[in-house]
């Protein structure tokens, strides 16, 4: 299942807890600067409607983000992204670390020499970026399902 929130598509897989996938989406938005410190985030209900998920799941995702001090909710005002820069900066590090660790865990089984691997990663990375930019200019932002 996926949903489109103003240009960023969110894909949910069915094997990881949906609320953690929502948290990760927020972290990615923060790490890439699409969401900024102090920015007001959608209400739980708006988020559920936007991502087409169960409102209880949205609630749980927000609770998790509050516990991780990613967002703050004061009284009745809407939740915001935290202003604590050290937390925001650690998100990017955390995301990078997690993703690379997962990659290494699966690549190790293939027993490829590091030089060959880095070479390949660089080539594929550039190709993907090239592909991405031509796709955007070709389709003019159309959805590719």
């Amino acid at each position, binding site marked *: *299942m996926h949903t489109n929130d103003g240009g960023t598509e969110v894909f*949910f*897989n*069915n*094997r*990881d*807890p*949906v*609320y*953690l996938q929502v948290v990760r989406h927020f972290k990615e938005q923060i790490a890439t600067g699409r969401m900024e410190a102090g920015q007001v985030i959608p209400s739980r*209900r708006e988020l*559920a*409607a936007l*991502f*087409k*998920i*169960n*409102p*209880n*799941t949205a609630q*749980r995702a927000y609770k998790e983000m509050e516990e991780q001090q990613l967002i703050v909710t004061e009284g009745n005002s809407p939740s915001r992204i935290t202003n604590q820069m050290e937390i925001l900066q650690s998100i990017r590090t955390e995301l990078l670390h997690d993703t690379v660790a997962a990659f290494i865990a699966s690549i190790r089984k293939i027993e490829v020499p590091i030089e060959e691997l880095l070479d390949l990663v660089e080539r594929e990375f550039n190709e993907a970026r090239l592909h991405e930019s031509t796709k955007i200019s070709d389709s003019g932002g159309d959805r590719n399902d």
Partner: protein
Amino acid sequence: MIEVVNMHKRYRLRNVLNGVSFTAEKGQVTCLIGVNGAGKSTVLKAIMGLTPMSKGTVRIDGRARERETYEKVAFIPDHLTMPSYMKLSEGLRFMADFYQSWNQARAGELMKFFRLDTSERVGNLSKGTAAKYNLVIGLAQDTDYVLMDEPFSGIDLFSRESIAEVFSTDLIDGRGVLLTTHEVGEIEHLLDKAVLLSHGTVAKEFQCEQVRSEEGKSVVDVMREVLWV
């Protein structure tokens, strides 16, 4: 909470249900999953008292089923029961006459949500549109619980998506939903809880997010393990 305790049903010399027990909480979406003929619809009908049980108890918020239950629990069957000559607007008025819990404002909201035309006749609706109208009729009742029998079955992708969208809105939020389906894949991220029905009993009852986080399994994965025998 809807409690089903030790529900038995014998039909034409066959034991359809052999002691089904589970609960469906208010504020949660609970899905009754099973292959065709597992008895899912029978359970819903028996909860509503539309078919007699051979044995067992149904309690709604701790009370046995009574007259008031029908103002508290809405049932959306797998087909539209409104007479085919009625206009959609007449069908809504029909409901308003029979149910105290009917909420006309919410009915209007739902008609708009599904883009239904009130001047259309029930008999002329396509299957997908009929399913949407059926949901309007069920959800426009201000009930604490809603039972839905196969709301997604035999309906095209876009209609399924728009029906699924209702689950993310406050049209459902806060109520207890118990639905049945045999194709859980595309809606499993909407569920709080799954109850797997097999051979007339509950093979497994679980919180979906818990199984994802503890076992890394989707509802379909669990369904394959448990029902694929």
